[in-house]
């Protein structure tokens, strides 16, 4: 058994590790900030159309999990890890009054509003946007309503850590086929699923008559 390490040496080691971490953190700050800035841009170019005729059975649920160890081929995404200071949900629309609630708040309130959103919702026609944000990044959607029904859900801005193909097109398809923001969680892309669901939830809140 090794003899105990001295407290002074421990302190020096701790300071050295912290210094190296700080150096790396500061050095990588520009790229992290660039990613964070791009994540906060309004909905733009990364939209992927969802096919409205897809069935829910075709989409992934927790029984068909994906793994995040695979070597990804998509280079669309980047990180928005600067957003980690507080997990917030927001909407890109200036009309939304519920946009700045915290994730925990929105989640608890969201769960209590599940039945409202899912079953009795009557929506105005038009295209409505929403955004979900947490530590793993930001996801924005545009939900199109025609004759009171969701006919399209598009991911308009995807700045999550893992590639968009983890959730797209399956989750937008689920939104259309199930007519709700309450979609199946994709195992291995939990954070992305939550963000997407939150974004759709806020869009549908705005669409409510």
């Amino acid at each position: 058994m090794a003899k105990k390490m001295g407290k002074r040496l421990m302190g020096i080691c701790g300071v050295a590790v912290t210094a190296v971490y700080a150096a790396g953190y500061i050095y990588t700050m520009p790229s992290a900030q660039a990613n964070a800035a791009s994540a906060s841009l309004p909905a733009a170019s990364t939209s992927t159309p969802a096919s409205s005729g897809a069935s829910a059975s075709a989409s992934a649920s927790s029984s068909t999990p994906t793994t995040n160890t695979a070597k990804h081929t998509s280079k669309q995404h980047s990180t928005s890890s600067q957003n980690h200071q507080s997990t917030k949900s927001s909407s890109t629309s200036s009309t939304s009054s519920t946009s700045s609630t915290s994730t925990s708040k929105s989640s608890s309130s969201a769960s209590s509003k599940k039945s409202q959103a899912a079953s009795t919702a009557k929506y105005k026609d038009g295209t409505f946007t929403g955004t979900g944000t947490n530590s793993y990044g930001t996801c924005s959607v545009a939900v199109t309503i025609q004759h009171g029904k969701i006919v399209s859900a598009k991911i308009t801005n995807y700045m999550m850590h893992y590639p968009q193909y983890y959730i797209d097109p399956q989750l937008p398809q689920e939104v259309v086929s199930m007519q709700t923001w309450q979609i199946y969680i994709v195992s291995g892309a939990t954070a992305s699923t939550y963000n997407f669901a939150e974004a759709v939830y806020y869009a549908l809140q705005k669409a409510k008559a």
Partner: protein
Amino acid sequence: MNLDKLMKTPKGYLLAILIGLTLVASLRPQDHIGLLNAGIAVITALAIDGIVAKLYKNKKKFSDGGMITALIIANVLSNTTPWYIIVATTAVALLSKHIIKSGRKPIFNPAAFGLLFAIYIFSTGQSWWGSLALLPTWLILIMIVPGIFISIKVNKFPQVASFLGMYFVLMLIMAVFHLGLPYDTPADALRIPFVNSAIYLAFFMLTDPPTTPSTYPKQIVFGSLVAIVGSIIFANYGGLAYLLIGLLAGNLVNFTFMRARQKKMSEVVIEH
């Protein structure tokens, strides 16, 4: 061993810390279900270790080590993991402890073995939610302070420091020379939520006494090796399994050197 005695041992401290972390992490509404998952993992662990103890007629029926392994598995696996996968992962982890061993010591960190098996065989997602990755930043102190405490208690501070030091140095080098993937960059690895995984592994998995060396020079080599292997995997493949692969590679090298030393010693004894 009764509960009072257990709680005065490093294992008892670690168990208390992991229970605390699980409770804090589950405060996040989306992670409430994590408590249920942790319960499933713990019950599985106690059942398997209980059966093994009965088979081998061990006096010790209550498996504190099994509980620690179960809590680590529950803290790492995604909360959306089905219950039967949690059971299977915990079972694989504990069976690896009882089957893949040298003498009485397991060769691989049981939790890391089970988790890597689950990732590649069951295709499970891992979120490391128990590392408080999705809670406010300052709560990381709830992991770091007890982590330092436990690493001192089990006399593994040099190992933890060498791992974290080498890991951060390699991430800095990767950033300076633009090495690695366009996604999963050093900027990601050095920030919340991803840095939480490395810190969690360093304090609560790397400090497992049976599967890691005891002397300080070997601890430093071991910690550095885990960081090097993990960083190479990270640079080439990304994902989150690189930490587990690094740890298991370190375990294997540790076992190989231990075996070689034992062989050498036995040869010396025979010569005399």
